[in-house]
């Protein structure tokens, strides 16, 4: 076990040592009666199987077909998102949601330069690139270069808004509805809304 695990290296750190340390810590806390391992299992399972970007995709899809809902989403995202009754784990942080709208003239992209704040309640846990020093340091000073790296080459006359989420607000980008999806229902529209488009590093494209 130890020999195998020693093969894995990530950012200069030996993962097997970390894995052992975590196991030691968990069993110490269980021995001291401070942790219920089944509680850990349930939290992990909930994030691995239940909470994810499919939540946010439903919100975006509804905003594409229902103008009244779109208005509510852009003025009071919390009330709009509450309508879906998405299952989450309550009580972690007092976070509220703000939705920002992409248009042909304005493109928004989200970051947390100080740590890794992310709208977890509707997108699940963030991808590694979002939490990386490379993304956090660069997207504020060179958003056009970063977006180009994601395959998004925006014309000079499009305004880019970068949202550094440093408070209890969590930002959801509402991407533009792509051409070629006329007449699609909400469910089909939701199926093409990607996580990256809701962070603002991609557009939604019709297949």
């Amino acid at each position: 076990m130890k020999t195998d695990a020693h093969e894995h290296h990530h950012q200069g750190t030996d993962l097997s040592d970390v894995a052992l340390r975590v196991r030691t810590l968990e069993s110490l806390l269980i021995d001291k009666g401070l942790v219920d391992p089944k509680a850990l299992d349930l939290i992990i399972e909930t994030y691995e199987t239940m909470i994810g970007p499919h939540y946010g995709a439903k919100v975006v899809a509804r905003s594409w077909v229902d103008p009244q809902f779109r208005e509510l989403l852009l003025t009071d995202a919390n009330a709009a998102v509450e309508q879906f009754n998405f299952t989450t784990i309550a009580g972690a942080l007092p976070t509220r949601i703000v939705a920002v709208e992409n248009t042909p003239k304005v493109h928004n992209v989200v970051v947390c330069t100080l740590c890794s704040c992310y709208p977890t309640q509707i997108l699940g846990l963030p991808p590694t690139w979002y939490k990386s020093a490379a993304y956090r340091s660069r997207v504020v000073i060179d958003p056009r270069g970063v977006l180009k790296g994601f395959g998004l080459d925006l014309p000079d006359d499009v305004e880019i808004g970068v949202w550094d989420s440093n408070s209890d607000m969590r930002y959801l980008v509402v991407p533009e509805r792509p051409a070629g999806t006329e007449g699609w229902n909400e469910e089909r529209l939701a199926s093409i809304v990607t996580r990256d488009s809701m962070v603002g590093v991609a557009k939604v494209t019709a297949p």
Partner: protein
Amino acid sequence: MNGVHDMGGMHGMGPIEREQDEPVFHEEWEGRVYALTRVLRLGPKWNVDMSRYTMEQLPPARYLASSYYERWLLGLEARLVASGVVSAEELADGRARPGGAKMPLMAVDEVRASLGPWRAPHPEVGVPPKFNAGDRVVACKINPVGHTRLPRYIRGRQGVIEHDLGVQRFPDTWVACQDPKPQHVYSVRFAAQELWGPDASPRDALYIDLWDDYLDPA
């Protein structure tokens, strides 16, 4: 504090590496660290700002060399020891000794009961705002050694209040649960050229949430 975590605008951090079909947790231990952080209730002086501040105080070289969940683990270990729940000796060899600060256990039933439809928390009301949408403001030039959510690249810069986001606790004094100092937080718009100079796009903008105590009228 002017730590390495405050990295907005830094150069040389390398390429942004993306991964197709990335799993939620890459290794089992990452999920355990995440969940441990969620269930441990380390007493009244521990809050999310203190969690962040603990990680901000990691030596810069260690911070940058560690993966995301390694930083969570280092922060968690530091908080457990600092709160007296676990001793450094216990952490070193994994053997429980008698004693140590007590802490309520979050059992699986409590987690199950907390699963439910997402509801937005309601912010405090009754605190008057100092600014209105459209006001020109300047971010304070401060360099506190403690925790702050005012990044360096914003300090001393001029912007415009975009929206009032309501009332939040003030991280700089709430960090060790000293004083919540509830106050208004605003989404403030800064022109990219105000932050980065003439080489930045004349169209682009940076929006960041700023508390009343971080702002002066411009």
